């Protein structure tokens, strides 16, 4: 592989990284919002969100991406490829994250809540100061797991013509007629990205180690 090929490869890696990164950040946050809305058990909205979660978890990524990208113009919205990709990845990962957050909230100790109520904390203060910091820590392994699923599932975005880290290996080998080196390099780059996520998780866990759960 020459310098030109490496340049293309890194461009592909960057595309995968930033689209995944934005989707991960949005998905973790929106998953939290969906989980909280579901905890509030607001009639109708709760069923609606429940249906969204089942649907999003059952739909293959490729299908979801195509659907969003193609239905945009029909609805008169002009989506560029990256936006469509981020929307699809976010819709997908939010559904999984919502369930991760929700189970962490549901399993959270009732005793700690009562102690907070007894000193006069409002539900919001309790959530912000007592429950959230601890559920972040307990959910982290599952959230990071879901993040790495997202990165590994991200080649699906090539279906609407985005040249991501997987797609770019095709382009390179079309010129070099040697498909193995770019694929091996892409594999290493995927591993690096996921390694970065796991490394971040380890640091957070170490900080939280004094927590006796």
């Amino acid at each position, binding site marked *: 592989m020459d310098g030109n090929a490496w340049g293309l490869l890194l461009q592909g890696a960057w595309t995968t990284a930033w689209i995944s990164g934005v989707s991960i950040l949005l998905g973790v946050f929106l998953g939290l919002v969906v989980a909280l809305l579901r905890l509030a058990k607001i009639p109708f909205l709760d069923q609606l969100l429940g249906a969204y979660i089942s649907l999003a978890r059952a739909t293959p990524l490729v299908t979801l991406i195509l659907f969003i990208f193609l239905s945009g113009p029909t609805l008169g919205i002009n989506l560029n490829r990256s936006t469509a990709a981020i929307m699809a990845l976010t819709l997908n990962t939010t559904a999984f994250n919502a369930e991760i957050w929700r189970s962490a909230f549901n399993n959270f100790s009732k005793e700690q809540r009562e*102690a907070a109520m*007894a000193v*006069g*904390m409002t539900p919001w*203060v309790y959530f912000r100061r*007592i429950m959230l*910091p601890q559920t972040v820590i307990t959910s982290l392994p599952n959230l990071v797991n879901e993040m790495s699923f997202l990165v590994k599932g991200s080649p699906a975005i090539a279906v609407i013509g985005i040249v991501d880290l997987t797609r770019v290996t095709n382009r390179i080998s079309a010129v070099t007629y040697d498909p193995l080196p770019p694929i091996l390099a892409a594999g290493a780059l995927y591993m690096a990205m996921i390694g970065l996520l796991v490394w971040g998780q380890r640091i957070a866990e170490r900080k939280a180690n004094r*927590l006796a759960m």
Partner: protein
Amino acid sequence: MPEQPEVSIRNLSKSFDGIEVLRDVDLEVKSGEVVSILGSSGSGKSTLLRCINWLETPDRGEIRINGERIGLQDKTQKPMSRRELAKVRTQLGMVFQSFNLWPHLNVLRNVTEALIYVQGLKKSDAVERAMAFLHKVGMAEKAASYPATLSGGQKQRVAIARALAMQPKVMLFDEPTSALDPELVGEVLSVMKDLSSEGYTMIIVTHEMDFARNVSDQVVFLEKGIIIEKSAPEIFFHSPRSERVRRFLELDKVV
């Protein structure tokens, strides 16, 4: 004008799944009084205590702290907003059997958290007040430790400091020593005894008979959700009116 009771409970009733756990309970606690609540397991002691700060919602009856209604609006009988309820609760400190410390916060922050985020104290003021109360319960040296590293007796003393630091009018204790190894019971009881001599108003659910005898001003005996005896400790422990209490005390002697 007669002195207003610090806590007044009237006609309190509560059912769980159609089973009546408290029935028409009346109780008045004066300022500085220590009231012990005794009774066999399942008699409704915890439920009574938890109704006082509205951790359980009673079905009927009214509870007043210093004349101020908790849980329901006085005029409309409608439930208080969560914010109003939280405000009334700051007048009541509660200590739980299982300590219920927050594991992600160190000892100091377990005490300062509500001072800062409920009472709105400046951080430096909160720390100063928290250290004073930690000192009072003999836990000042452990201010930087996390709950997981403490013994049960130490955890309970921190929990007491956490409640005291809010400067409540009344302290509620639900079997504060029942989860402790026998050799750790004494350190917690001694803190509670100090509080009673300092004039704190306390309502204590306990199985510690000697403590109830020596520290209480009133002893209350609950049986199936009904108060069947309410008397001064001298009377309660020596010549109780009810046959049931006599049996309960004899049983305790045998064990």
